[in-house]
């Protein structure tokens, strides 16, 4: 997994609550048997004016000029700013894959849906929860300044704005450790093979019908 330590990135605002994973990556793209290549279809139904299909060349498709990510000022954004309950709905990991493939490394929102939040950490994508007032403040700052950037320091758990304002954020110790070091969960778990085996033997003895 890609490590996440520090990021100084351009911020793009997506000012909607309850952005679901169907919107992040529509179902037809879930037919892929690969983990990559979802970036051009991130937010497909909002981003393009026509209907997208897997395997189609997206370069010539008509863009929706009203969709925020199509505005030139947000080109190359690495931080997505969002509202409450971001990533709700389907468990599709294609959603963080698409966000990462597009170029996002962090998402700042009021709240996240549980499964999406978890899936982000498996893919080197950092989801950060801030209070509603702080998120509001950032939306205003992004709107007011073209090229608005934020610096995220995972070790320190801080987000620094250009005006010197610093936002502290929470992240679970174990997830932070894995992200900072780009650790593979499976490899970590397999260090405990003996414990799993002894649990398994005990569990099967207690519930032999399993």
């Amino acid at each position, binding site marked *: 997994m890609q490590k996440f330590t520090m990021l100084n990135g351009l911020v793009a605002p997506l*000012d*909607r*609550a*309850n952005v*679901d994973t*169907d*919107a992040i990556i*529509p*179902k*037809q793209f*879930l*037919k*892929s*048997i*690969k*983990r990559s290549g979802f970036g051009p279809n991130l937010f497909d*139904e909002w981003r393009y004016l026509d*209907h997208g299909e*897997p*395997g189609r060349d997206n370069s010539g498709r008509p863009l929706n000029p009203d969709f925020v990510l199509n505005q030139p000022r947000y080109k190359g954004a690495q931080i997505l700013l969002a*509202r*409450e*309950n971001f990533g*709700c*709905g*389907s*468990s*599709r*990991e294609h959603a*963080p894959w698409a966000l990462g493939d597009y170029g996002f490394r962090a998402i700042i929102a009021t*709240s*996240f*849906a*549980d*499964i999406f939040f*978890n*899936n982000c950490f*498996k*893919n080197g994508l950092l989801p950060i929860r801030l209070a509603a007032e702080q998120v509001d403040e950032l939306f205003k700052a992004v709107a007011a300044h073209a090229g608005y950037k934020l610096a995220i320091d995972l070790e320190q758990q801080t987000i620094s704005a250009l005006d010197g304002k610093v936002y502290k954020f929470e992240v*679970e*110790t*174990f*997830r932070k450790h894995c992200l900072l070091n780009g650790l593979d*969960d*499976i490899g*970590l*778990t*397999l260090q*405990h093979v003996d*414990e*799993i085996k002894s*649990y*398994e033997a005990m*569990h099967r003895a207690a*519930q*032999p*019908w*399993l």
Partner: protein
Amino acid sequence: MKAKRNNMKAQTLYDKLWNAHVVRQEADGTALIYIDRHLVHEVTSPQAFEGLKLAGRKVWRTASILAVADHNVPTTARAQGIADPVSRLQVETLDSNCAEFGVNEFKMSDVRQGIVHVIGPEQGATLPGMTVVCGDSHTSTHGAFAALAFGIGTSEVEHVMATQCLLTKKTKAMQVLVNGTLGKGVTAKDIALAVIGKIGTAGGTGYAIEFAGTTIRGLSMEGRMTVCNMAIEAGARAGMIAADYTTINYLKGRPFAPQGELWDKAVAYWHTLHSDEGAQFDQVVKLDAAQIKPQVTWGTSPEMVVAVDGRVPDPATMSDAVKRQAAERALQYMGLAANTPIAEIRIDKVFIGSCTNSRIEDLRAAAVIAQGKHVAANVKLAMVVPGSGLVKRQAEQEGLDKIFIAAGFEWREPGCSMCLAMNDDKLSPGERCASTSNRNFEGRQGQGGRTHLVSPEMAAAAAISGHFVDVSKL
């Protein structure tokens, strides 16, 4: 004081299920929990199998896995295979992965094939006390059997395959208490929608929900599955209901359920799977069943829901700016004007199916409404998609297919179908659908499609009338 101390030891059902599966725990509470049942489908598994192959890893316990293709499968002309080459490749990839790793799979031609959340319980592959995972958010369905069941991402699918465990943290516990008698025409689906309407689509985020109370106790297993299925639409990864005789009677004799002495031993354990008297929840939400009316969603989130005798709300009356904006957007997408009576909304299509409402009881309830009537002229398509081949066969033995076909419904082959429209079953832009599925998100049933979530009875009645009608008044 003594009684209070005892109370502190009382455990919730969630506590019991969690504690029975912890293999080890990190200092920050992150735990390795053991997984008993892993359900697999074609959409979220190919990258997991590929990961195993790349790392040269094996599946830890193949017997824990039951695989089936459901999302991509056609609901017509099954014998001809899948026309879409991309969908076909995904299903073939599941077939070859299952063969290579020695995993039990119900293939598309198998009568036991169906929606993963329908076939697990139907086969007795979901049992009380189990941990059940699947790369699908509606895995919460299986919690109806007093199991700890939740959806996971593909990285976790690979993790469970390789280690039989999952890295996760215990969440908070919420109790949703529903007491009283449901009115005529009010169903488990209406309970689920009413709960979501009350706590919101993020109300259960960070919680495992236990549904309890006399109304829940009175539900069949089909109804309990419908309720737990939609826990995720309230934000809760897991929903669950205590085991009782309804649970045990449902499971007896099912192919994967224990038999003989093991059955007796299992039943004795299953009877302990309930929250203890005095167990503490982080939050308790109460609903009076008698106050719940048939529900209809009007917007693009399941929390945007009202009773069928209500009206489309007016965003101008909403004080929260984010909510108002969302409601305005939803009305625009849905092509609805504020204050329109729900009963005046005319529909173009009807979908009866999905892991929420495609079980035999759902089909029986819809058939009662459809019997001797005909689908309205303005309804272009009304389809019934059974949850599994076995549900379909049972329905046909009961003559339900004939009732539906005579009434102008299409009777299809089992699968996820128009719940998420990954196969050919989809809405065209602007089409309005009464659907028994679980998500009314923008584009969920087809780009530009407009979804109204309802119960099977409400969907059937809307098909007959061409618009929503209050089934409690029929």
